[in-house]
């Protein structure tokens, strides 16, 4: 290693020149002040503004929110469309629950027309099939009363035909 140190003796002497390169006079008197000022500036900026921190962490959200700045019409329309979407979703969900019943309700009208035909009626329902009387039971599920709409008793139940337990004549 000493041999290699000797080989590079002149180079090391030349590199000494780098130690004589000095910054402008007074540079280090102000250096630490500059560092501390930048730290203080960063602290005040970081603590002061929520918007700037949000801009750093989620710039896409800030850009999105800026669309609504000074545009009440846009935000009103956006809110209305959100409400309509919610309402549509509720109605759709309600329909999907009662959908099969409605289909059968609609088909009951067709069934009534079929009932008017005695030949068919006698073949399909016990009500008309028993001539000597008895209990007529409708097996049509759509004719069952609906207890409630949205969990509360509803007058809509009266719209549906109730099961008849009256003796058939």
């Amino acid at each position, binding site marked *: 290693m000493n041999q290699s140190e000797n080989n590079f003796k002149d180079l090391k*002497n030349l590199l000494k020149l780098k130690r004589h390169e000095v910054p402008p006079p007074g540079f280090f008197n102000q250096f630490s002040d500059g560092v501390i000022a*930048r730290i203080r500036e960063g602290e005040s900026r970081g603590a002061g503004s929520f918007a700037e921190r949000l801009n750093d962490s989620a710039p896409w959200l800030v850009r999105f929110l800026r669309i609504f700045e000074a545009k009440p019409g846009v935000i009103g329309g956006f809110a209305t469309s959100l409400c309509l979407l919610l309402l549509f979703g509720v109605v759709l969900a309600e329909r999907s629950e009662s959908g099969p019943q409605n289909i059968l309700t609609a088909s009951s009208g067709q069934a009534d027309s079929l009932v008017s035909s005695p030949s068919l009626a006698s073949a399909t329902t016990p009500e008309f099939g028993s001539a000597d009387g008895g209990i007529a039971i409708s097996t049509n599920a759509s004719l069952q009363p609906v207890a409630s709409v949205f969990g509360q008793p509803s007058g809509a139940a009266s719209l549906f035909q109730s099961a008849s337990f009256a003796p058939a004549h």
Partner: protein
Amino acid sequence: MIMSEPATTPDPNTPAGMLEGDLVKRARRGDLHAYDELVKRYQERIYATIYHMTSNHEDANDLAQEAFIKAYSALKSFKGGSSFYTWLYRIAVNKTINFLKQRKNKFHLSLNDIDFNAEHDPDLMALISDKTPTREVGLSELQKKLNEALLRLSEPHRMVVVLHDVQGQSHDEIAEIMGCNIGTVRSRLFYARQQLQGHLAEYIKP
């Protein structure tokens, strides 16, 4: 009889008189006066290292400031496994190497002046060619060629030369700062010196 003035020792209750460990503890609690003292203690060495790596005063000023700011914001993560000085050096070195990689080969020299003492350094004077008209011109030319030759080295090789041959750091310290083993430091230093000797052949006596 002339009384000699007693040597003034700094008050241990002021930041200037505090030990490094106490200053670091206070700075971690947000005491900027303590951190200001830490900056003053290491600013010259940190600046010089970055300057010798970049050969540009403005870049060195910006990078040194950023290194101190980053160190302050990361003080909470400083575990004390190494000295604050080594930890700070590591931040400055990484920042400088990242900067140089981004800048790639677009070098712009902005060299500092050479101080008066250089003209009285016998080793330096011995290197200046007899053909040079004046010593001042000789030193300026030598400075430019030396910085250009350093910039031709890769960043890790340049860093080792700067830390060892210019800053006077030991192999152990350089290994800790650069996060590599001593063998790597030695081999990089040897290779870098060889390269420099080749680039500066006309200024170095055979």
